[in-house]
C-alpha cells in the first residue's frame, strides 16, 4: 500500500508540470471563454466593468437567430462537404501514384507534391489571387485559349467558394498523402500477389485490398481533415475577406469579425462554442458511421 502510494505520488509529481501548463494555457482560457460567452462583454465593458451584463444563453440564442451565422455555417458545410472528399481523394490518388511501379523520379515527385504544405499560406494565397484574377490571371488566360469565357473566380459569389475549396485542397493534400504512403506500405504485398493470381484487375485490387487495408488510416485522416476544414479562416481572410456578398464567410471568420473587428467578445465566444459542439458532433458521427460500416462488412 505504502509503496504504491509513493509511486503514484511520484507519478503525479512527474506529470504536474505538464498538467499545470495545460491547466494554465488551455483550461483557464477555455473556461474564461465559456464565461465570456454568457455575458455581453464588449468595448463598453472594457471601459467599465459595470457595463457588463449577464446574458445567460441569450448570446447563443442570438447567434442561432443570426441569418449570417446560418449563411456562414452553410458556407462552411459547403466547404467541408466538397473540400474533404476532394482533398482526401487527391491525397489518396497521389499516394497510390507514388507507390506505383510505373512512376519514375519518385523522390522528386514526392517533394514536389508535398511542397504546397510547407509553403506559407498567406504568400501562396496572394499568388493564387493573381492566378485567378478575372482579367490578368493565368487560369482565365488558359481558358480563353480554349475558347471558354473568362470566369470571375474570386469576384462571383457562385465561384468564390469553389475556388477557395480548390485552393485548400491543393494546399493541404500533401500532408495526407504522406500519411497514406505510410499506410500503403503497411499493406502486405502477398495479398496483391494472391489477388493477381486470382486474376483481379487493378481496380478490384484497390477496392478489396488497398481500401480495407488502410481503412483505419482513412478514418483518422477523414476526422482530422473534417475538423480542420470546419475551422476555415485564413483562406477567405486573405483571398476574399468573406466576400463577395458574404459568400465566403465561414463560421470562424464570423467569430473573428465579431470578436476582433467589432469587439463583441461575448458573442464571438458563443460562436466559438457553437462551432466546437458542431465539430464534436460531426467527428462522433464519423466514428459511429465507420463502426457501422466495418461492422456490416465484417
Amino acid at each position, binding site marked *: 500500500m505504502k509503496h504504491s502510494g509513493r509511486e503514484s505520488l511520484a507519478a503525479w509529481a512527474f506529470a504536474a508540470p505538464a498538467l499545470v501548463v495545460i491547466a494554465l494555457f488551455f483550461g483557464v482560457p477555455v473556461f474564461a471563454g465559456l464565461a465570456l460567452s454568457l455575458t455581453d462583454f464588449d468595448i*463598453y465593458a*472594457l*471601459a467599465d466593468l459595470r457595463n457588463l*451584463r449577464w446574458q445567460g444563453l441569450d448570446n447563443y440564442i442570438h447567434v442561432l437567430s443570426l441569418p449570417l451565422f446560418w449563411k456562414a455555417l452553410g458556407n462552411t458545410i459547403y466547404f467541408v462537404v466538397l473540400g474533404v472528399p476532394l482533398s482526401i481523394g487527391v491525397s489518396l490518388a497521389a499516394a497510390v501514384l507514388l507507390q506505383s511501379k510505373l512512376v519514375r523520379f519518385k523522390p522528386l515527385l514526392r517533394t514536389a507534391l508535398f511542397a504546397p504544405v510547407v509553403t506559407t499560406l498567406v504568400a501562396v494565397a496572394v499568388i493564387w489571387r493573381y492566378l485567378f484574377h478575372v482579367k490578368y490571371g493565368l487560369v482565365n488566360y488558359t481558358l480563353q485559349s480554349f475558347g471558354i469565357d473568362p470566369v470571375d473566380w*474570386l*469576384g462571383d459569389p457562385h465561384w468564390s467558394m469553389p475556388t477557395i475549396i480548390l485552393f485548400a485542397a491543393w494546399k493541404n493534400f500533401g500532408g495526407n498523402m504522406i500519411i497514406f504512403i505510410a499506410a500503403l506500405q503497411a499493406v502486405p504485398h502477398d495479398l496483391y500477389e494472391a489477388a493477381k493470381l486470382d486474376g483481379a484487375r487493378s481496380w478490384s485490387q484497390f477496392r478489396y485490398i488497398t481500401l480495407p487495408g488502410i481503412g483505419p488510416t482513412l478514418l483518422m485522416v477523414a476526422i482530422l481533415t473534417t475538423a480542420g476544414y470546419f475551422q476555415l479562416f485564413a483562406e477567405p481572410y486573405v483571398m476574399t475577406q468573406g466576400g*463577395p*456578398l458574404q459568400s465566403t464567410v465561414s463560421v470562424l471568420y464570423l467569430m473573428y469579425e465579431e470578436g476582433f473587428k*467589432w469587439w463583441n467578445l461575448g458573442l464571438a465566444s458563443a460562436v466559438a462554442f457553437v462551432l466546437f459542439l458542431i465539430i464534436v458532433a460531426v467527428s462522433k458521427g464519423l466514428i459511429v458511421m465507420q463502426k457501422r460500416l466495418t461492422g456490416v462488412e465484417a
Partner: protein
Amino acid sequence: MGRESEVAAELIAGFEREHPGVRVKVEQLPWTAAHEKLLTAFAGDATPDLAQVGNTWLPEMQALGALEPLEPWLARTPALAAGDYFEGIWATNAPGGQRVGLPWYVDTRLMFVRQDLLARAGITEMPRDWTQWRAALASLRQHGMDKPILLPTNESAPLLALAMQQPGELLRDGGRYGNFSGPGFRAALSFYLERFQRGEAPGVSEVQIGNLWQEFGRGSFAFYLSGPWDIGEFKRRLPAELANAWITAELPGPNGPGQSIAGGASLAMFKRSRHKPEVWALISYLSRPDVQLEFYRLTGDLPARRSAWALPLNGATLAEDRHAAAFHRQLERVRAAPAVPEWERIEKEMQLAATRAVHGVTDLDATVRGLDALVDGILEKRRWMLDRKAAA
C-alpha cells in the same frame, strides 16, 4: 500609421532639435492592425502617450475613456485657434461634446474626372448638381462609353458621401436608432442605385477591377470618387501624356455643390500618459503650419489648418494647386458621420445592404427597412447605457 509613421520620424527629428531633453519613440503600425492594437493596448494598460487616431475611431476611444480632454490645453495655446481648422473636420474631434483630438491631416471624397473624355462627349462644364451629373453620365454613354462612372461596391464612402448631402441624420434620437428609412438616406440610396440600374456603373468590387489606375488611364471610366491619396497615385501611375487629361472636382449635390465626408486623422493624447506637457508640445509642433506643409510635401496628406494652405509652395500656395484646389473648396463643405462608437460597423452594414440592392437581391424599400432593423439591434447596448445614465 502606414506611410505617415515613416514620415513622422523625419518630422520628429526637428522637434527633438527644438526640445533638447525630450526623446520621442515612434512605433509604426500598419493601418489594418492599428485599431486592434490600440484597443488591446487599452485593455492591457499599455497605451502610448500620443497616437494618430482615425477620425472615426475617436468616439470609440472617447467612450472607453482612454483619451485626455484637450480643452484645457487648447485654452493655454492661442496659436491653435479653432477658426484655423475646417469646421466640419473640427466637429468630428469632439464626440459626446468633449474635444479629444486635434486634426492632423484631413481628407474627404470628391470626383476624379477625365475631363478630356468629357470634352469629347461635348460636356464643357463640370457637373455641379445631380441633374447635370445625370445628364453628363447619359451623354457619355451616348458617346460610346459603356460604364462612365466607377463606384466600387465594396466601398462605403461614395454612398456615405451622397447621404451626407441630405438633410437629416442617419441615426435618430441621439444615436439610439437607425434612420435609414428616412427620406434623406432613401434619396441618396436611390440616386446611387440609379447609376447601376441605368448601366452607368459596373456592379463590381475594387478587387475585380484589378489595376484601377490603369483602367482610369485607358478611359474605362470618366468619374471616380476617391480621396487625396489618389492625387499622388494618379500623378505617379498615369502616363505622361495624360497629365493634363484628368482633374479633381467637387462632389455634385442634389441642388448645387454638395457636402462630402469629413475624414482624416487626428492627434490624440492618452489619459494614462505620464508626459502630458511634452506630448502637448509635440502636438503643437506637428500642428504648426510650416510643419503641416512639410508633412504634406512628404506624404501628400492634406494639412488640417487653413493657414498651412496659404503658405508658399512651389511658387504658389497649396490652395491654388491644380489638384488640391478642389479639395480645399470641398473641405469647407464636409460633414461628419454620426459620432457613435458603433458607427464603423453600421457603415459596413450599410455598404453590404447597398451591395445587395445593387445586385437586385432586395429593393430600395426592403433595403432601408432591413438596415434600420439591423442597426437598431447594434445600438441596443448603447440605448441601455444611455437610459441607465439618464436614470442615474
